[in-house]
């Protein structure tokens, strides 16, 4: 038997402080009102984090406003770009440390933080650093202007990468920011605060306030912010849209999804199986654009499901710090409970549940990679976003039926199409109501490519020139 011996990444690559304050005006405040943040794979506490109040938020917004008026808006684009390049390079230099930190606090495998999260975070800063002195070509005419202070709230599924998606274009466009990381995953954002100090970024350009939903609400509510950027659940997105209605605050919301991954009978089946696995089991399925609904053409259903199950037998679930782990821990107990509830509901409504045999670690939060077959379009697991490693399988017979079923969702973030026929790819991409359509691949991200959704998946785009426009307005 060829078992892989443990190959753990070194825990010592990162040292957390015992407790953290907020990062306001270039300095860390004294920790107060703290709560413990844990490693979801072991449930051990990693550090004490400050739960931000409206007062903390106010101090952060004031620091951002002052930095905007006194320094950041006065700098020329090339100088702003210089700081962004510097940040990008420091992220690369400290990539192993950041990967370990992210894995410890989030529960995702080190393979993913090492090969996806951290390199993508760096690439976002590199990309937008290049834009900083070329804003005249963004499409708004000469001398476009920043909004001012941007309030940014990011989720726990890709903590540092989402931070990069938000902060890089904001700073390139000349805004200053106050960012709130998710309550369960604040550590990489706090390490990023150290990186801002290391890069000698002017004080107050980036401020980080940690805390819970009330901290985020206080930030969105603050009277002196000009722009809101949020990635997270559709429910919270709705609350935010109501909160800012009637104000002058601009908003981009990147919310939930229930993407269809559509496999036609002429697809390259082995690679489609890989794409399905990557689409739903990457990052434990904690991905807003996860391909959580598999739509497979009836004529290849049996062979595809057989291959998919065989492939899933090879998925390695376990210690996220092990370099050979494919699926790590679910980020929180609350999320695990939610996944469990939805899967049980789906089975009750007629779905058939299957998961490969895998040994679950004793501590921490875990959910085996699961597929549910025989799912009717009315089944809860075909409609609600599960945000976990759970794939709902449905079938179709004709391209028109595939489109109808794929579009029959309250969401419209992403979709996948698998076929060897090029013309069909173009036709499908044209008809699918999704912000991103991947053809013969899935979950590919690039800073030059805009990302965002339709319907309840939110509005506005991140990435590329479109992402830059979210942080700019035409000159007066």
């Amino acid at each position, binding site marked *: *038997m*060829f*078992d*892989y*011996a*443990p*190959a753990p990444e070194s825990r010592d690559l990162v040292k957390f402080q015992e407790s953290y304050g907020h990062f306001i005006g270039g300095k860390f405040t004294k920790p107060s009102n703290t709560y413990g943040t844990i490693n979801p794979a072991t449930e051990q506490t990693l550090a004490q984090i400050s739960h931000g109040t409206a007062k903390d938020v106010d101090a952060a917004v004031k620091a951002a406003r002052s930095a905007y008026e006194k320094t950041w808006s006065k700098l020329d684009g090339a100088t702003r770009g210089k700081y962004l390049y510097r940040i990008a390079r420091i992220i690369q230099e400290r990539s192993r440390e950041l990967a370990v930190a992210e894995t410890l606090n989030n529960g995702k495998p080190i*393979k993913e933080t090492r*090969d996806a999260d951290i390199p993508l975070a760096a690439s976002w800063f590199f990309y937008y650093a290049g834009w900083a002195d070329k804003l005249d070509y963004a499409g708004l005419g000469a001398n476009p202007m920043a909004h001012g202070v941007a309030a940014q709230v990011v989720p726990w599924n890709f903590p540092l990468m989402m931070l990069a998606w938000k902060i890089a274009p904001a700073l390139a466009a000349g805004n200053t920011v106050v960012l709130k990381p998710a309550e369960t995953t604040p550590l990489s954002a706090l390490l990023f605060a150290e990186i801002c100090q290391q890069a000698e970024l002017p004080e107050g350009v980036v401020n980080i306030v940690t805390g819970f939903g009330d901290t985020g609400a206080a930030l969105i509510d603050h009277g002196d912010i000009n722009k809101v950027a949020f990635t997270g659940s559709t429910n919270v997105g709705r609350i935010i849209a109501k909160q800012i209605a009637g104000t002058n605050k601009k908003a981009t919301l990147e919310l939930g999804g229930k993407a269809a991954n559509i496999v036609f009978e*002429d*697809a*390259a*089946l*082995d*690679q*489609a199986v*890989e*794409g399905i696995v990557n689409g739903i089991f990457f990052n434990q399925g904690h991905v807003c654009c996860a391909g959580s609904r598999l739509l497979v053409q009836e004529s290849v259903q049996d062979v595809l499901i*057989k291959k998919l199950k065989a492939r899933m037998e*090879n998925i390695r679930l376990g210690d996220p710090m092990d*370099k*050979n782990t494919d699926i790590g821990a679910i980020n929180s107990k609350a999320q695990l409970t939610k996944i469990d509830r939805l899967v049980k509901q789906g089975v009750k409504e007629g779905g058939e549940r299957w998961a490969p045999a895998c040994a679950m670690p004793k501590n921490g939060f875990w959910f085996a990679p699961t597929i549910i077959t025989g799912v009717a379009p009315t089944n809860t697991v075909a409609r609600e976003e599960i945000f976990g490693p759970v794939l709902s399988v449905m079938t179709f017979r004709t391209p028109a039926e595939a489109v109808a079923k794929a579009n029959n969702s309250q969401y419209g973030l992403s979709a996948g199409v698998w076929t*060897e026929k090029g013309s069909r790819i173009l036709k499908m991409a044209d008809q699918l109501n999704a912000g991103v359509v991947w053809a*013969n*691949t899935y979950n590919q991200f690039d800073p030059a490519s805009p990302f965002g959704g339709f319907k309840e998946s939110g509005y506005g785009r991140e990435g590329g020139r479109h992402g830059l426009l979210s942080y700019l307005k035409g000159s007066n």
Partner: protein
Amino acid sequence: MAAIDPEAIVGSRITNQSLSRWLHSLPGVDKVGLEAKALSLSTRSIKTTSKAWALDMAIKMMDLTTLEGADTKERVRSLCLKAATPDPMDLTTPQPAAICVYGDMVAHAKEALGKNKIYVAAVATAFPSGRASLQVKLADTRDAVKAGADEIDMVIDRGAFLSGNYLEVYKQIVAVKEVCQRKNGNHAHLKVILETGELETYDNIRRASYLAMLAGADFIKTSTGKVSVNATLPITMLMLQAVKDWYDQTKIQIGVKPAGGIRTSKDAIKYLVVVKETAGEKWLTPKYFRFGASSLLNDVLMQRQKLTTGNYSGRDYVSVD
């Protein structure tokens, strides 16, 4: 081993048309996806006990090869001695599966190996180009089998394959397989070399794999080692997927042999990971997976010494052949 019924598998009498229809009905291969998957598997981290297991298995799976125009009886004998005792400083070192030589060296190799349980494989059928009449190819094979070859590594007619003459390729493999049969009822194991570097596309490689399996190959092998592109990880993964699917369909297990260009332990371990995670544990045996290699053995021996003694000995502590 159950015999296959090619007509039942193809679903018709074997003609060029029916073969063509059958081969072209196989699912396509997406190049980008295949290569990405191979790259992703090559990042597996194989340490300590797993590494020791893998290094030993790599040796056991090796077809230690010399296929030079300049080969001599002495050189083949030296290679055989090396196979019999790969590391004189560590007698626990396993022996490779086979010695792979040209047909005229088979008798010398058999003699040099004596009672060692190491097979002799012979390349045949106008290796490496395969450009000769069928009579010549069969005579070449017959010679090697008569000289005692346990395994025959034949090449397919790539010219015929690329021009769509699948029936010709099929017939030649069937004919060579017949010649592999011995009077005592045994047969020399037949490895069919697809020369993937000349087939170029992954779709072609999948089709050629199926054609060879249909015609009765015991092994499908990537390359002769004599063209510019030899074994690669994605190609081997594709062929492993083919033998796995074939087994699921027919219950007949076919082996895979990547050959050419695999020189380091690190590479060999990547291949073993791909075997495990594509075809499965059933293929992790010399019976169903081989490495066609010459310089690989010395690198594995050095890594093995490093693992057992803690010290890296260097090139002068392993023999050059």
